[in-house]
């Protein structure tokens, strides 16, 4: 993996071959393995039903894995019940205790740990300060806004100084404006407290903007784990390329001698040898819409015809058809000199840098 550094610290948390199979067509979580460093903010990203929430529940001990290990500091915690794991879990629904005040909610975990009165009061006050809710201690959850309830849930989870903070789609119940605010707020709280965090989301934007590394899951399997830049620019699988950001897929033929690529008979920019899949000559070439340049016809490149042009505010979306009938989407900045070329019906040439394409076995 590209993120391996020479002096990487030993992983704080490691997941090995974690599998949860409830007897469906395929395991909900399928041999998942990855490491989390201390203080890292990891995103677990994937479409609904990909197994990310199940993974979180396996972590918390609310479900038992069919097989595999989750170790924290070298100790396997799989056999421990949830109340002996020392993890902080923040639910999508917040799951606050409605019959308790904010202070009682946050103090709950400390009380169970038999922490003294004074220390409890001090730590609760500190946790409420960390989520900027000092002065709200006497309120009931029902008297708070959604964003405030969310922050109480976070305070309640971090006050016990958990080994890892688990966040289950914490932003999806908030309205759009609050969501943007809480995105930075959560990352800010994590930076200040330094708690290792696993953040489950289906929203690529949230994952890209908040996480140190993103683990992309699909159909119970780990597709790729890496920094936001890595998963966006160097997608390891076609699924990742399509799920994170937009991507054009061009069915092409690979000639290994060149190496050269042909798409419906037209040559594409030649890829570096290191990019080629291990075997096969039928490949999918993936290029981001914003990486493609438009040029006047005849200036060299992939010949295409403009089919549609849509102005979407901050950019212009152009849809083109290749000679073989495959379609390509291109995003142009409004000030791009190629904008006048994008007239429906016009013939143009397409070009892109060889570093901007990914090639996968079809």
């Amino acid at each position, binding site marked *: 993996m590209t993120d391996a550094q020479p002096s990487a610290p030993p992983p704080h948390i490691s997941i090995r071959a974690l599998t949860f199979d409830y007897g469906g067509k395929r395991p909900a979580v399928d041999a998942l393995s990855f490491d989390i460093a201390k203080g890292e903010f990891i995103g677990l990203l994937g479409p609904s039903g990909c197994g990310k929430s199940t993974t979180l529940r396996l972590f918390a001990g609310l479900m038992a894995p069919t097989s595999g290990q989750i170790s924290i500091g070298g100790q396997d915690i799989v056999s421990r019940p949830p109340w002996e794991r020392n993890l*902080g879990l923040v639910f999508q*629904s917040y799951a606050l*205790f*409605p019959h308790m005040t904010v202070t009682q909610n946050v103090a709950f975990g400390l009380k*169970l740990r038999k922490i003294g009165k004074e220390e409890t009061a001090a730590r609760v006050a500190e946790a409420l300060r960390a989520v900027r809710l000092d002065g709200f201690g006497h309120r009931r959850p029902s008297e708070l806004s959604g964003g405030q309830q969310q922050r109480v849930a976070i305070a309640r*989870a971090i006050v016990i100084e958990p080994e890892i903070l688990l966040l289950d789609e914490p932003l999806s119940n908030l309205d759009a404006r609050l969501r943007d605010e809480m995105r930075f707020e959560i990352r800010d709280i994590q930076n200040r407290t330094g708690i290792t965090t696993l953040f489950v989301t289906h929203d690529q934007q949230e994952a890209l903007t908040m996480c140190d590394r993103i683990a992309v899951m699909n159909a119970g399997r780990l597709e790729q784990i890496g920094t936001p830049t890595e998963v966006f620019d160097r997608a390891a699988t076609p699924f990742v390329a399509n799920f994170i950001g937009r991507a054009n897929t061009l069915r092409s033929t690979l000639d290994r001698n060149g190496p050269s690529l042909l798409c419906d008979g037209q040559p594409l920019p030649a890829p570096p040898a290191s990019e080629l899949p291990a075997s096969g000559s039928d490949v999918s070439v993936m290029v981001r819409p914003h990486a493609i340049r438009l040029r006047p016809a005849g200036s060299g490149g992939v010949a295409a015809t403009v089919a549609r042009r849509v102005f979407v505010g901050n950019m212009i979306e152009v849809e083109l058809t290749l000679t073989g009938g495959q379609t390509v989407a291109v995003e142009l900045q409004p000030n791009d000199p190629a904008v006048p070329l994008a007239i429906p019906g016009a013939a143009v040439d397409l070009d892109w840098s060889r570093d901007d394409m990914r090639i996968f076995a079809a």
Partner: protein
Amino acid sequence: MARLISLLARAYVMAVFAFIFIPLLIIVVISFSADSYLSFPPSDWSLKWYGEVLSNEGFMQGLKNSAIIAAIVALLSLGFGLPAAYALERLDFPGRTLIRNLILAPLILPAMMLGLGILMVFTPAGLVATYPGLVLAHLVMTLPFSVRILQTTLSNLGADVEEAAMTLGARPLQTFLRITLPRLMPGVVASSAIAAILSFDEIVLSLFIVGPRLTTLPVAIYRYVDERTDPMVAVLAVLLIAISLAIVLVVERSVGFAKAFGR
């Protein structure tokens, strides 16, 4: 046209209400009668039949028995119903759906049949005309209701709050006592009240297993009405209504009746 329909609809609703409440109203009026037979309207007014009922030893003994049985039934119905509802709602075990449905069977079976079955089991066991016998028989009727109400309350609560407590370090019993039970209070009050009312009004099962040594108020009233019809019957009816109403009022005041049923 719309006006006419609206008018008819109103008339219909009033007719339904009249159908339900006029007999009750007539009974309340008759209970204040001075006549020595049931007639409407009474020729004169008095409270003498109230005095008769209150000084009638058979009725007062029956009232006492019924009250004691209702209280015990309410308590046991909760004591047995709560763990059952919790297991059926929160735990996963083989045969859960079957048991969930089977537990409602007493609601469907004719009370006559239940009564006969209970009598055949209780006679050899020496439970006929005893407190334990009556309490057990009433529990057969009240438990399905208790379990059902508590199950609904539990399922409306959702499991995530309990799961949150567990991840914070609460063991299952601590979670139940500190988190689940306080949030379950409306259901607890409602199911106990329903159990008490059902037991207090229960007649069919009681008829099979009461005896000269121990009888309940509804059975005593039933026996009395069988022989005589004087305004005492109306007084007893008013009394039964008042007691049931009092229980409903307590529920309404403490948790709110609609809320108690998880709405």
